């Protein structure tokens, strides 16, 4: 007889903050530099160097804490977490253990099973490590400290999740909040958002939690789902076989679809935390909290409600458009110019999404200007160009952010409204396609589409489709 098990999941989410400089020195955080080009004595642990805290890190961490309903710790300290590893130049990481900046928060998620709150145990500030690259040629490893000292916040949830769906809903929620704050771009695949999954199983109805494992190296939602399913089954199998689950850290291999324990006798997991004597306490006053609060943006849920109310968008549209802040910004800025919210929404949900997908890009990588999209919508709306030309021009805007007015002018794409000329063209096409005419007369309405298409082709796509239809019907009904 098989028992039913409940999966209990808590998440440790690391988010790289979008500061211009590192947490404790004035080195750039920009991606793409030559190895070690963005380093200095501080972030490479040179003897004699000392850390000085980047104020923006405190502001971002506080803003995320407020947006996730946390209590802000007004007297903060930094602690050293001591462990030897080559990506960690001082062999201690500056983090917060005893007095993390945020505690006791919660966010609401929604899955098919309805809404629920996920508790946030704490959020703390810390520094990122460098990057280790394996060198096959010399069979050694190489260290690049460009990422060393990039500011992170670690968001530690309560063990409130019960399924991969809930985990993903929670991560999406965090991503939306943090992106709306501008505190990070939160990309799992690029490592600016990283989730470690703490998972245990227990018999349904049991009061105590089971022994948990921590899963690392999860770089996509898909990997997270697979790893959760795999680990759940692995733990249930162990229990069913009468064995016990070992509390350990495991690494997920997404190519092979399994995880393995990261164990070493040299890894004592005893971090000897103590307050970092090189940094002074951070005191966050009521005034400072109020100031950060007053700067909080409109978050997704409010924005969505406003789009429905203010712009009359269908809920479906509002839902999709607010899924990325960049998209929502684009919507609002474009609508402010052309005053045609539904048309803007259609462009963003339809053509934009299609082109993004084709280009393998994320919505936050949109790079065209709202002015040009607005101009295009107005050109189509006032009949200067027809729908199919608009589509082509939009592709140009999407790719190169061209000015549609100029582009239409220069390429002679204005709609052709010359009815007499059009009539002659259509007469010719009808004469050449007797079969289609026959079909139409036999009630096959589709046949007219073919004739419209032929006309469009003959006019280089510039004809007004409404006018074509009108003339065609006149001719065919003769």
């Amino acid at each position, binding site marked *: 007889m098989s028992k039913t098990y409940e999966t209990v999941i808590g998440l440790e989410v690391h988010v790289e903050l979008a500061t211009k400089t590192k947490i404790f020195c004035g080195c750039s955080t920009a991606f793409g530099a030559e190895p070690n080009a963005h380093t200095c004595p501080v972030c490479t642990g040179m*003897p*004699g160097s000392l850390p000085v805290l980047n104020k923006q890190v405190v502001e971002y961490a506080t803003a995320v804490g407020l947006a996730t309903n946390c209590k802000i710790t007004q007297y903060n300290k930094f602690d050293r977490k001591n462990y030897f590893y*080559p990506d960690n130049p001082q062999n201690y990481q500056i983090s917060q253990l005893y007095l993390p900046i945020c505690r006791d928060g919660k966010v609401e998620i929604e899955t098919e099973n309805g809404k629920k709150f996920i508790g946030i145990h704490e959020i703390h500030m810390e520094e990122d490590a460098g990057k280790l690259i394996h060198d096959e040629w010399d069979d050694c490893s190489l260290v690049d400290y460009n990422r060393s000292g990039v500011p992170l916040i670690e968001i530690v949830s309560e063990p409130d999740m019960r399924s991969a769906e809930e985990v993903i809903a929670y991560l999406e929620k965090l991503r939306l909040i943090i992106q709306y704050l501008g505190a990070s771009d939160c990309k799992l695949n690029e490592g600016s958002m990283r989730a470690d999954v703490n998972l245990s199983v227990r018999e349904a109805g049991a009061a105590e939690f089971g022994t948990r494992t921590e899963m690392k190296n999860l770089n996509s939602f898909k990997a997270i789902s697979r790893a959760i399913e795999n680990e759940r089954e692995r733990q249930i199998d162990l229990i069913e076989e009468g064995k016990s689950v070992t509390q350990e850290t495991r690494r997920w291999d997404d190519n092979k679809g399994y995880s393995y324990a990261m164990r070493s006798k040299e890894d004592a997991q005893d971090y*000897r935390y103590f307050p970092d004597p090189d940094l002074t306490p951070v005191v966050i006053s009521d005034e400072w909290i109020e100031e950060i609060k007053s700067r909080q943006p409109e978050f997704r849920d409010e924005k969505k409600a406003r789009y429905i109310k203010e712009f009359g968008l269908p809920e479906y549209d509002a839902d999709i458009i607010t899924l990325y802040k960049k998209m929502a910004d684009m919507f609002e800025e474009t609508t402010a110019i052309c005053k045609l919210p539904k048309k803007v929404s259609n462009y963003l949900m339809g053509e934009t999404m299609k082109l993004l997908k084709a280009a393998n890009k994320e919505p936050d990588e949109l790079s065209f200007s709202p002015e040009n999209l607005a101009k295009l919508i107005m050109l189509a709306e006032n009949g200067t160009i027809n729908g199919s030309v608009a589509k082509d021009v939009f592709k140009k805007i999407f790719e190169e952010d061209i000015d549609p007015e100029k582009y239409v002018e220069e390429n002679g794409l204005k709609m052709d409204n010359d009815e007499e000329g059009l009539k002659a063209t259509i007469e010719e096409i009808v004469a050449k396609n007797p079969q289609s005419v026959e079909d139409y007369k036999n009630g096959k309405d589709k046949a007219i589409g073919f004739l419209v298409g032929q006309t469009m082709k003959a006019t280089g796509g510039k004809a007004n489709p409404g006018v074509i239809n009108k003339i065609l019907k006149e001719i065919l009904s003769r």
Partner: protein
Amino acid sequence: MSILDYTATTLAAKIKAGEISAIEATKAVLEQIEKTEELYNCYVTIDKDGALKQAEEIQSKIESGELVSPLAGVPVAIKDNICTEGMLTTCSSKILGNFVPTFSAEVVENLKKAGAVIIGKTNMDEFAMGSTTETSAYGVTRNPKNPEHVPGGSSGGSAAAVAANECFYALGSDTGGSIRQPAGYCGVVGMKPTYSTVSRYGLIAYGSSLDQIGPLCKDVTDCATILDIISSHDTKDSTSVGKKTDYTKALVNDVKGMKIGIPRDYFGDGLDSEVKKAVLNAAKVLESRGAILEEFDLGLVEYAIPAYYTIAAAEASSNLERFDGIKYGYRTEEFSDLHNMYKKTRSEGFGAEVKRRIMLGSFVLSSGYYDAYYLKALKVKALIKKAFDDAFSKYDVILGPVAPTTAPKLGESLSDPIKMYLGDIYTISINLAGLPAISLPCGIASNGLPIGLQLIGDCYKENNIIQTAYTYEQAGKED
């Protein structure tokens, strides 16, 4: 009178007046080094050519009027745990035996701006851990007052270099007495400023919450003058506050009404009777100049050492983790894997005393012991600070010995670490409480070795101890 007998400020005045050139002064020091360095071993690195080149540049800047600092052109020695760009900085350890910093400590920058001629880097106890300069990987330094004895430590090289006229003044660092005790043993003036007064940027950390850079020099005037130059608010050091006043303003020969507390607990068992007599004698001299003396019980003195060694070892164990054979310094020749490389590099690179403190520090921070040892020590530190706060509500200055005895013989101390640590009993609590304190000569014992007097002030009240020390020093000249 030889050039070498001048104090730093006197020399600078003569250079400014054109009576002596910075080049002559530098040459005089280098000649003295030729004569005595082989015996005393004050330096790890001597930069003869660099020093002469600096002297020439500085001399022309002084002549052109570009440099007007009160120490321009004066040769200085720098403790080997203070980073000097382009000049070997070893902390007297094998693990940094080849380390050439790519930036200079803020104090070194301050000295350079003031026209100092940097002669070289002075020997010390490895990573400043020790009280005798015998734990150096580059040989022991001998006390110029008697080469059979230690110069004290950890800034023993700096103190000895000043005492041996191998420089005109030196910088040291003081974590538990490392400036004041060797100054006392070598018969020179040394001062540990209030924590946060001198930037720690570029000082290779031992106990970050206790370390402070300060001067070792020939008299109190030099001490105040150097402190004026090296203290600064440095935005690269989060714990830096900087200068609160001009220290040379306190060079006033007057202690009328100055309230001096004499802690009975500093004069109990373990204090050598000659040292006791000399120190109390100094108190009487100050009383004769108008100071008001009062004995009192400071309390907690015997708890300072265990609290200090817990905190300092804990911080050191973490501060010294960065020496791992990857980014700089020594790396072991052969190893099987990463962790083996770490272990071999560190075991071969560090000396016994450093390893002892790293082990202790790692232990007191380890899981299950943090509260019992480390947190307990931090609480005791709070009590010690409170005891000093209470004392300074009554007194302007606290007066006592620097060390229980005069300089021990070479080789006597290292065999029993706890006995060695006990030698720090009068200096260590000052670091725990972050206070300023000065050490100055107050007599010669029958063994011919100097005795040190310690004057302790409240936070940022350096001027009280400078004024008291200056008055005492002047009294010696008058009597």
